[in-house]
């Protein structure tokens, strides 16, 4: 098996409260992995540690075989990881197309000198990236919104744009924090469809979700967290049968019933 990412004995404390408590797991290349667990289990905290927004008190993060524990977030992103956020982080006061363009890798135009001289290679790069961004918008069905401000999109469209933007970075690891939260069933199916297409391109996906139906429909591997520790891990069917998992969800009637 080929590992894309691994976290090793992560511990994160907030004012003495352990959000993560010696957590270790590995993510397999080219698979869809679901990260589930009750509220406060530490799911988003793990994403924050992996992407560098949060420094762990202890433990290490490895990405494609490289130790990245001390790298700042933008350097990790440049190594090929992209994420979306539970509470959506678009650039609201610029257009949808510009949001997409920000995901593109620029070698020239983001340099001051190229901007001042309007170098032909910079203009060419911008032109190419514009085409690519429009293609990506076409792919997710947001092409006609290209010149609209991102803040004017509906909630579902914003989710879609944030995922499309993460995809457009070309990252081979995608960390999606509740990619289908708060969207209509139709949009949810659409988003899940994209995730499977991305996986088929050989990219690796880790996603957090609360809806068991979502998790069991597309995840190939499930990691269950509770109180900052790994409670269980395995195929969706195995996790579903695991008595410890059932117990962790007890009291959360909805989730328990779905299990």
């Amino acid at each position: 098996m080929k590992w894309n990412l691994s976290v090793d004995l992560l511990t994160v404390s907030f004012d003495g409260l352990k959000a993560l408590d010696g957590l270790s797991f590995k993510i397999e290349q080219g698979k869809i992995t679901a990260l589930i667990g009750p509220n406060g289990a530490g799911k988003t905290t793990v994403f924050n540690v992996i992407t560098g927004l949060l420094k762990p008190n202890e433990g290490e993060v490895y990405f494609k075989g490289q130790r990245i524990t001390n790298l700042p977030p933008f350097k990790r992103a440049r190594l090929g990881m992209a994420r979306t956020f539970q509470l959506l982080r678009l650039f609201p006061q610029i257009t949808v197309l510009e949001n997409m363009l920000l995901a593109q890798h620029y070698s020239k135009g983001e340099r001051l000198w190229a901007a001042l001289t309007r170098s032909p290679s910079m203009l060419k790069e911008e032109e190419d990236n514009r085409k690519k961004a429009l293609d990506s918008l076409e792919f997710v069905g947001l092409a006609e919104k290209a010149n609209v401000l991102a803040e004017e999109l509906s909630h579902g469209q914003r989710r879609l744009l944030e995922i499309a933007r993460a995809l457009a970075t070309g990252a081979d690891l995608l960390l999606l924090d509740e990619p289908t939260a708060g969207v209509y069933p139709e949009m949810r199916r659409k988003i899940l469809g994209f995730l499977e297409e991305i996986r088929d391109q050989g990219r690796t996906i880790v996603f957090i979700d609360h809806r068991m139906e979502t998790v069991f429909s597309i995840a190939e591997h499930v990691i269950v967290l509770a109180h900052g520790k790994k409670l269980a891990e395995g195929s969706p069917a195995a996790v579903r049968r695991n008595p410890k998992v059932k117990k962790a969800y007890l009291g959360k009637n909805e989730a328990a019933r779905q299990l």
Partner: protein
Amino acid sequence: MNYILHILVIAGIYIILTLSLNLLVGYTGLPALGHIAFACIGAYVSALLALRLGISPWLGLPIGAVVAGLLGLGVGYPSLRLKGDYLALATFGLGLIVYAVAKNWVELTRGPMGLPGIPRFDLFGWQISQVWAYLILVTVFALVTIVFIGRIVKAPIGRVLRAVRDDEIAAQALGKDTRKHKLMAFVIGAFFAGIAGVLYAHYITFIDPSSFTVMESITVLLMVIFGGMASIPGSILGAVILVVLPEALRFLGLPSSIAAQVRQMLYGALLVIFMIWRPKGLLGKYRMG
């Protein structure tokens, strides 16, 4: 006639100040309240070089601008940790400090007595003392500023600045070095404000600390907000209107002591009105908060 040209020279200097502040506030989302401090540095550096060492304003101009840019770097670096209101307060503090130094370092700046007799720019041995000639000079520098900042904000690098403004964490998650971009905005903004200061010093030929009070920073900020956040035509319009408007008060026949107060009240009222009803400003593309 000379009076009108004089107003245009002043408007040109404010256009440079407003554009350079708009790069920080409107495009990069850094609420800077001490912008006039950079102009103050530029003005004093170039004036002192000319008065004490006899250095030509043509050399004083880049030196003054670079020193202002270095101050921008010095302030920008610690300010990277600050956001929003805290950054606004830190830059406000900078404005107070620079003003206090100009006022109290009497051996160097002559304090409140100011520096009289600052030499003018000259061209092939000919002193640029006519107002129309100075207007051409200021116009050239205003155009340079418009092209320089205009090209930055239109290029992909300008898009990164707006991304930093809209959501810094998301920009980092897309691989953007947001610290570097914020520092760049600080340095370029300070550099051009420094140029504006130099142009002011060698035009009026007298500077004292009272030209560089915190109220002046607020005036420039008002020009940015009024004309339009993240808009270059907006900054030009904002600077011109707010320089010309108070001059119009003179023709109402108000005594000059009252006119100065009315100007301040007018600015204050405009600031409040725009923040409530049109936070983007006249031609703006961004609203704060």
